[in-house]
């Protein structure tokens, strides 16, 4: 079995008296795509933010590449990237300028070559020198993905990456993630509210509710355990029956 690239142990985040993430533990193996599923406010984004070090956990441990996150933030983040539909890049810069700044932040070499490559792969040629504020929301999402792929990260966190993409680009994006994963053994944590996408993309799914893991396994295993044939039905069942854990971990 491939070794765990991301290890999360008893991770908890409280904002004041409110517990957003409540003692979750999981691992992501090298080259694995893990889907994080759950209703609005379940704690998915908060979890990703903790894995990126922009939110400090209240308790629990995060290890990436076997290294404790707090002590090795710089080493880890150099090989990690993220993309989120809800985090945009500076609007007053062009697409290419934004990519150049990102390249600098990650200390990349062969910058022009890399940018040419990613712009071609994400079919961004026609808006490459446009100002970011002039892009459609789907184009902006593609820019955000391009930024994430540019540094060829070993670990990629994607927070609803396809939420604003048209079906064609969404499918191409999924194919690209799969392909990069196949060729580079990139490890991916993925959130989406699109159940079909979740099933198609994820090797394994974690179902989060109110900050807790209430189900975990392959899509098929989770469906079987719930006696449903459709992940969407599983989602509705969990979301509407607040306290119905499938199994305790």
């Amino acid at each position: 079995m491939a070794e765990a690239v991301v290890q999360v142990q008893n991770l908890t985040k409280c904002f004041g008296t409110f517990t957003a993430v409540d003692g979750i533990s999981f691992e992501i193996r090298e080259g694995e795509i893990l889907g994080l599923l759950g209703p609005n406010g379940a704690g998915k984004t908060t979890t990703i933010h903790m894995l990126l070090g922009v939110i400090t956990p209240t308790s629990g441990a995060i290890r990436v590449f076997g290294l404790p996150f707090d002590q090795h933030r710089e080493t880890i983040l150099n090989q990690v990237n993220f993309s989120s539909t809800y985090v945009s890049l500076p609007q007053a810069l062009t697409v290419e300028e934004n990519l150049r700044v990102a390249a600098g932040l990650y200390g990349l070499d062969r910058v022009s070559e890399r940018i040419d490559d990613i712009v071609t792969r994400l079919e961004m040629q026609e808006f490459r020198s446009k100002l970011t504020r002039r892009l459609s929301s789907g184009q902006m999402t593609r820019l955000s993905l391009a930024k994430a792929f540019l540094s060829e990260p070993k670990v990629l966190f994607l927070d609803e990456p396809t939420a604003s993409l048209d079906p064609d680009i969404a499918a191409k994006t999924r194919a690209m993630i799969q392909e990069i994963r196949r060729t580079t053994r990139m490890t991916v944590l993925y959130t989406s509210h699109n159940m079909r996408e979740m099933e198609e993309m994820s090797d394994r799914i974690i179902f989060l509710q109110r900050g807790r893991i209430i189900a975990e396994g392959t899509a098929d295993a989770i469906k079987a355990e719930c006696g449903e044939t459709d992940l969407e039905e599983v989602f509705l069942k969990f979301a509407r029956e607040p306290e119905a854990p499938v199994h305790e971990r």
Partner: protein
Amino acid sequence: MKFHRIAALLSRHLYLYKRSFPRVMEIIYWPFVDLVIWGFITLYLERFKGTMPSFVTFFLGALILWDVLFRAQQGITISFLEEVWSRNLMNLFASPLKPSEFLAATMLLSIAKVVTVSFVTVLVALFFYSFNVFLLGLSLVPFIVNLIVTGWCIGVLTTGLIMRYGQEVEVLAWGLVFLFQPISCVFYPMSVLPEWLRAIAWMNPAAHVFEGMRRVITTGGFPVQDLLWSMGLNALYLAALIFWFHRMFAVCKEKGLLVRVGE
């Protein structure tokens, strides 16, 4: 600290200024207007001369120097606000960028702004009022460096407060520095202040710079003591404020504010 990350931040701001006429104007406009108004006031006051040595040198010199401090502060605070406005903090701090590298980049930007502004103000003073600031002597250079550092201190302070308390306190970016103006003794000697205020002014590194500047003009000698005071206080404050900024940064990460600022 990694220079490539600092350079990346610098390029991000240069891209911004390259295309933004209003932003460039912002740097040039205010010092220009200030200088024109104060220049004419000075010319008017010159008519009553005899009671005081060279009004022009006192006021215009003071004004140009105050602008150095102000721009140095703005260089830091506005650079941070640009990231807030464009909601870019998440992109920056989810990358390997460190808060110290962020501060270093804003400090370099502030030097660039100071140099640009000074270039404008010095030229304006020369053309409109035939006032050559360099006549004050090269001994002013270490004082200017100290003013920049004081500007950084106030810049780091305002930035930390805005980061922690959000956009409601955004006005501090422009306002807080002026709280320091009366106790910086820009246009008058420290001796005109009431005793209790003088004690406060004494702790302000900028006040020693302006005292020193006046000493340069009136006596022509080099005021070592004023310089040492402002250097000592600056070093103390800058170190303390950078430490405090890192604390604020940690608090923001605990409260999840870093990913929320700008909303």
